[in-house]
């Protein structure tokens, strides 16, 4: 018996586990973000660190894909109105056209790409660390969902 108002031990353990998981994930994101921000592009530490993170997440995604395949049910996919996708598709097409014209058209100095703007922001170490943490969080979400 537990006193009135007290959480049962199982619920308390579950909460503790969730808090510990969130704290660990935050520490990993902050640590990796800071480490990546401490490296400079075109150097071997940047290659090794980024490559190591990418290999780990790609492996997790591959394992997740196998598990996902086992439980995948195509009939559960969300139905969307095809016509309503036109606007989203148009924005994506515009962004792709902008990036490709800058890449192949030699007009990058006139039409800067998204990565050029990000590069400017990443000159500040804190912004680069936050960007790297966000990038890792997105990759982990993709791999584990």
């Amino acid at each position: 018996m537990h006193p009135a108002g007290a959480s049962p031990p199982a619920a308390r353990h579950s909460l503790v586990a969730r808090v510990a998981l969130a704290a660990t994930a935050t520490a990993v994101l902050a640590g990796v973000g800071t480490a990546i921000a401490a490296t400079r592009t075109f150097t071997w530490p940047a290659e090794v660190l980024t490559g190591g993170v990418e290999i780990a997440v790609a492996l997790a995604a591959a394992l997740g894909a196998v598990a996902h395949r086992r439980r995948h049910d195509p009939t559960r996919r969300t139905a969307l109105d095809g016509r309503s996708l036109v606007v989203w598709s148009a924005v994506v097409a515009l962004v792709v056209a902008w990036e490709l014209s800058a890449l192949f058209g030699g007009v990058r100095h006139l039409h800067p790409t998204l990565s050029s703007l990000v590069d400017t922001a990443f000159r500040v170490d804190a912004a680069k660390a936050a960007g790297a943490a966000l990038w890792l969080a997105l990759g982990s979400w993709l791999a584990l969902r």
Partner: protein
Amino acid sequence: MTAVLVGSDKAIGLTFWSLVLATLAGLELAAHRPGRPGRPPSFGQLVSRYLAHPAWRALAVVLWLYAGWHLFSH
């Protein structure tokens, strides 16, 4: 990733990307407006719909890998 932007070049890019962001935010807001039968899907609905398919999911992971390599290694 080598270009470093200055002056008006930066303004052109900022204007374009601000418009893109504003459009995306507008679409998301339109998707959440109640009582509109023809409203566009939200970003979350698109993600749920397409990442359920292995090929789109693989493409998303490949894009993520490229983004990391491009932004932090090169």
